């Protein structure tokens, strides 16, 4: 059994806020839900499946489902970190295919910017987690965990800081056209290299933004999709996985995308060269390089060369990516960039991206992300979508 063609993304909404000092997290979730349902042309009463992850306040999906007063017959709070929402689309498609629900709502929201979060400060990820006593005392922040991946990639494959910088340069070229983007200024490779080093070898401009906000998606059964007056984005393939330290056989050069990617391509029956647009989780520049390799867009170790010289810039390079400006420039709500990856892919497939970055004849798109820390343990989710 496959989810191919069993569900459609018919509603997608990205909250325009990037600083929400005057809103609650629950309110942001609900505002996103409202936006995505309005986009689809559906109402709250149509929703019978609800998906959220660790950014939702309270116990699993219960508090938010109660806040929104949803009448549900399917709930799922799978948490793979920042890529959870990419997996949620696949899980919603599975539930729809099994007849467990017909209209699935996925929400993400948070206000880390208002709350003063920083990726350079060590964060406790569960006092009782088995790894915490061995790692929290070491000062594992977010950035230095990814920085160790970058350092090893450079050592093993000759990847350069200049090549990593090109990821940010491409994102900034896209963000200049997004009025909601936090950082709209086009930057150069030199700008990235001249920005302060936060954790060697990563600079400030190798890092994503910290932003408040959120997003929501509505995934529906085919018969409902056909009744709605919106372009239809069909789910055709998905994969998910995780990777950790493997009992001490640590290898920082690849991610769980080596499993989630091929699974998604196999289910969709397409290959990387067929993809017209790719949303790639960009918590840091190195995240993009490693994931592109793992998904098969280039050989392992060639990611630095692949992203250089504008190859990710829409209208310029071979693989337009993150045309909203991505996490690096636009938005990284709740420190979790998964949902915005799907939202921009939906915009591209609908032909509703900004004209300056819209990919011509964009009929096949991929959204992929990782969650947690690439340098210790992380989840990965890949989703392939087709315009019908």
């Amino acid at each position, binding site marked *: 059994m496959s989810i191919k063609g069993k569900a459609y993304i018919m509603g997608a909404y990205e909250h325009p806020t990037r600083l929400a000092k005057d809103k609650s997290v629950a309110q942001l979730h609900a505002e996103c839900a409202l936006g995505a349902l309005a986009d689809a042309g559906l109402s709250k009463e149509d929703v019978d499946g609800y998906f959220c992850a660790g950014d939702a306040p309270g116990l699993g999906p219960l508090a938010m489902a109660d806040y929104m007063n949803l009448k549900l017959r399917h709930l799922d709070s799978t948490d793979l970190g920042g890529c959870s929402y990419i997996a949620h689309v696949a899980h919603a498609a599975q539930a729809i295919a099994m007849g467990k629900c017909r209209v699935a709502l996925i929400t993400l929201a948070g206000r880390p910017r208002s709350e003063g979060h920083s990726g350079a400060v060590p964060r406790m990820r569960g006092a009782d987690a088995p*790894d915490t*006593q*061995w790692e*929290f005392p070491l000062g594992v922040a977010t950035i230095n965990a990814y920085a*160790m991946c970058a350092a090893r990639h450079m*050592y093993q494959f000759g990847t350069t800081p200049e090549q990593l910088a090109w990821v940010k340069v491409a994102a900034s070229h896209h963000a200049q056209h997004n009025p909601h983007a936090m950082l709209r200024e086009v930057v150069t490779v030199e700008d990235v290299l001249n920005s*302060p*080093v936060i954790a060697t070898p990563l600079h400030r401009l190798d890092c994503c933004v910290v932003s408040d906000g959120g997003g929501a998606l509505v995934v529906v059964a085919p018969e409902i999709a056909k009744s709605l007056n919106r372009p239809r984005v069909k789910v055709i393939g998905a994969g998910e996985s995780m990777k950790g330290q493997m009992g001490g056989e640590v290898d920082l050069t690849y991610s769980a995308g080596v499993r989630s990617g091929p699974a998604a391509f196999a289910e969709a029956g397409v290959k990387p060269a067929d993809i017209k647009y790719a949303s790639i989780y960009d918590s840091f520049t190195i995240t993009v390089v490693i994931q592109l390799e793992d998904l098969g867009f280039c050989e392992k170790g060639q990611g630095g060369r692949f992203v250089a010289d504008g190859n990710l810039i829409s209208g310029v390079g071979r693989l337009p990516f993150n045309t909203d400006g991505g996490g690096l420039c636009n938005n990284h709500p709740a420190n979790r960039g998964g949902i915005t990856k799907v939202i921009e892919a939906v915009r591209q497939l609908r032909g509703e991206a900004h004209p300056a970055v819209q990919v011509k004849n964009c009929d096949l798109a991929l959204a992929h992300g990782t969650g947690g820390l690439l340098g210790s343990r992380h989840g990965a989710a890949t989703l392939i979508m087709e315009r019908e």
Partner: protein
Amino acid sequence: MAERKIPAPGINPETEPFWAAAREGRFLVKGCAACGKNHWYPRAICPFCFSDRTEWRPASGRGVIYSVSVMKRAPEPYAIAYVTLEEGPTMMTNIVDCDLDALRIGQPVRLVFKPTEGGGPPFPMFTPA
């Protein structure tokens, strides 16, 4: 330069022998009597063969840096690293008591126990050999 204060690890019954040995200056790893392999971090159940016949084994404290990153944006810069032990496993750690900017992947290092806050057990870290 002032050194970063190291939080005490949260010990549990599964890991108490490691920290008791650390207080005596002994560095242990967990190995498996069934499959023979050593692993990190220490577990009661072998992460390779799932046997419960794991045992604490003395380790040399010698290793090489697998990867390293110096956190510059901190009140006291520090180096987080993975070190591959002579006994096999690669463990997350800090590299201390040295010129952080001179650290390189592949560099030999040796274990040093560093004190933790609140009278906690000393934490296994490394310094250039």
